[in-house]
């Protein structure tokens, strides 16, 4: 019989029983802790940036420092928090559980991914201490500025290159796992939706990440040897960098949001005590988003001097992506119809997600119409859009998932009242922080501005105040979870009455997940059990 994976140390002791473990659950938790560590770093930098922007002129840091702050903030949040966020932590923990497997297909490669992740993270952070200082290019690394600046752009780009490897390895691991290790009877159309989104995400990771790898490598070579690919003084074309960069970085935003959508697709049926509405529609819309998402990258370049034909084509395809996203939203909401809805913390976070992501996504449409993009590109409107999608969307879904699976991962339960308070505080703080940015952008305040004319003062002030409310919310949330980790009540194996396979093993699950590999006979959210009536009470 398997033992609790927390106590099964594979013959190792202390920290090395974690950092050399090939158990997907331990690796998932390793990822979770390290990702939260990077998140905290990014968040503190965000707070500093808001403090600088509280008033016009210099407030706390110099222009040079501010430039590095938003660059590091962007790099950390994108590459080290939100891209690996859901798939590598929650995904690693839950994918084998959800498909009834004992582990992922390549446990050792899984561990390697985590190591690469850590090495990349430390490399990125190390730029702060290296002579020359942290990069000051923005997370987009646009040349020719990124070729000229004396800061440590190459080191940061190399860090992103390494994490690309980590991401690719996770992707191919997940695809192989899903193809090879599903439990008997788990057909494709019986797979839980979170697993489905991990599957689509893994494909995007595999297809897009190599492109950023080569792009960053070429940038590094350009800086080291002057190869001239992106340097107009040698005949290169800076727009080619923009193309290559966004060929990866747009699909990357779907790497962030797809698994987040998967989490919501798990939570909503569970707390409605009902099978999900339109399972197939949700599955195929996810695949459509992944596919279309690959060919819309040009919407980041409408004002770059790209050809007008491209503007038209990219704008058109971008609009098309909204349709499958809408299908998901509509199906989640329809799932509640005639259900038995109970708003426990995970569900509350899911509601916050649906609302905030809808705002983020719908403002994405204002971005993607060429005529309006010409005005708001490069302004705080964009900053607001992507915080709504990434933080309000992917971030809140991550929190939702954390609350949903916390009892499964730790075996303990947190305080509901505290997490409700946290969620509401986060929600309010979030809107106070980011909504004014839409107005700022519409008024014309460009992003990456260290200083701004006085007419933008009010909205910036409000926004900074919002960041403190948000900080308070995060503090409550994490304190609550940290307390529960040590002092929480025992949660039981299936506290939410979930239907997917992970709820049918113990909490936390034993070393190889299942005492006996389950045989699947029905869809993931079906409540018709043998010997049970529909909709048990």
């Amino acid at each position: 019989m398997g033992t609790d994976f927390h106590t099964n140390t594979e013959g190792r002791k202390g920290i090395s029983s974690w950092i050399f473990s090939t158990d997907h659950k331990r690796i998932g938790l390793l990822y979770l802790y390290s990702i939260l560590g990077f998140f905290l770093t990014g968040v503190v930098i965000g707070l500093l940036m808001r403090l600088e922007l509280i008033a016009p002129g210099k407030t706390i840091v110099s222009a040079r420092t501010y430039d590095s702050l938003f660059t590091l903030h962007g790099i950390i949040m994108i590459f080290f928090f939100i891209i690996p966020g859901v798939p590598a932590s929650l995904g690693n923990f839950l994918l084998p559980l959800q498909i009834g497997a004992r582990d992922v297909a390549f446990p050792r490669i899984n561990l390697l991914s985590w190591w690469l992740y850590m090495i990349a993270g430390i490399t990125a952070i190390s730029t702060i201490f290296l002579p020359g200082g942290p990069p000051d290019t923005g997370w987009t690394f646009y040349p020719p500025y990124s070729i000229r600046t004396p800061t440590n752009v190459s080191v940061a780009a190399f860090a992103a290159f390494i994490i690309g490897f980590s991401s690719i390895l996770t992707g191919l691991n997940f695809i192989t796992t899903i193809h090879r290790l599903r439990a008997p009877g788990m057909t494709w159309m019986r797979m839980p939706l979170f697993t489905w989104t991990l599957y689509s995400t893994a494909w995007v990771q595999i297809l897009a990440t190599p492109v950023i790898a080569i792009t960053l490598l070429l940038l590094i070579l350009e800086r080291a040897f002057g190869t001239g690919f992106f340097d107009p003084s040698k005949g290169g074309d800076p727009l080619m960098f923009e193309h290559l960069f966004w060929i990866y970085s747009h699909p990357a935003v779907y790497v962030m949001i797809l698994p987040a959508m998967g989490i919501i697709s798990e939570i909503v049926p569970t707390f409605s005590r009902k099978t999900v509405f339109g399972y197939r529609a949700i599955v195929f819309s996810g695949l459509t988003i992944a596919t279309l998402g690959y060919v819309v990258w040009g919407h980041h370049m409408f004002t770059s001097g790209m050809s007008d034909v491209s503007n038209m084509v990219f704008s058109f395809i971008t609009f098309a992506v909204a349709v499958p996203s809408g299908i998901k939203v509509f199906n989640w909401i329809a799932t509640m119809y005639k259900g038995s809805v109970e708003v426990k913390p995970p569900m509350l976070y899911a509601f916050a997600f649906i609302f905030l992501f809808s705002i983020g996504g719908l403002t994405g449409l204002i971005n993607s119409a060429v005529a309006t993009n010409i005005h708001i590109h490069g302004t705080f409107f964009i900053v607001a859009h992507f915080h709504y999608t990434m933080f309000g969307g992917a971030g809140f879904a991550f929190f939702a998932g954390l609350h949903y699976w916390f009892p499964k991962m730790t075996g303990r339960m947190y305080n509901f009242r505290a997490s409700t308070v946290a969620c509401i505080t986060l929600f309010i703080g979030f809107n106070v922080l980011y909504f004014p940015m839409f107005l700022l952008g519409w008024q014309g305040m460009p992003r990456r501005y260290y200083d701004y004319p006085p007419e933008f003062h009010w909205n910036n002030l409000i926004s900074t105040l919002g960041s403190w409310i948000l900080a308070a919310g995060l503090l409550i949330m994490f304190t609550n979870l940290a307390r529960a980790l040590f002092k929480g009540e025992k949660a039981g194996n299936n506290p939410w009455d979930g239907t997917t396979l992970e709820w049918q093993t113990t909490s936390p699950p034993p070393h190889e997940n299942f005492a006996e590999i389950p045989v699947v006979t029905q869809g993931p959210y079906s409540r018709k059990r043998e010997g049970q009536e529909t909709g048990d009470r």
Partner: protein
Amino acid sequence: MVKHTDDVGAKMGMWLFLFTEMLFFGGMFLLYAVYRAHYSADFSGASSELNRVIGTFNTVILITSSFTAALSLSEIKKGALRSASVSLGITALLGIIFLIIKYTEWSAKIGHGIYPGSAYFNDLAHGKVLFFSLYFVMTGIHALHVLIGIVVFMVILFMVHSGTVRGNNFIKLENAALYWHFVDIAWIYLFPLLYLLR
């Protein structure tokens, strides 16, 4: 059939990895295509400064090594460890020859002052600068792959001798060979793009 390792799974992982490699090279091919369309005269001028004979010779070497790699897989499946080792050894050796030739080719170019960053290089026409940069980067990255392949084959050779890789457990060799064939394919495209098209 209770096997602990999943060979098909391992092979699937390798293929997926190779597909990412194709996209990795794809990024460079994209740059090549765009700059070639833009500076076609310079590109043909610069391409004629590369030595076709050397290029062709290296192509033959690499194709042959791919053949011996495939041969060694067939042999090991039959359980013929000895001839499998020989084929493996020849593959690695051909890889080394390829690298030596590449090295002399590069040194000749560098000896003439043609390398990114040199004064002579920066005075060349824009299209030529880009062509030679592409030449160095593409063949450089390819050579790195060849080098990794050689090391992998050495390790496999050792495993064959120590009995880890054998007639009924050849997935490591199979994956190594797959990787090597991919390196060959990359060169199959690099060769005409850099040496032949004028």
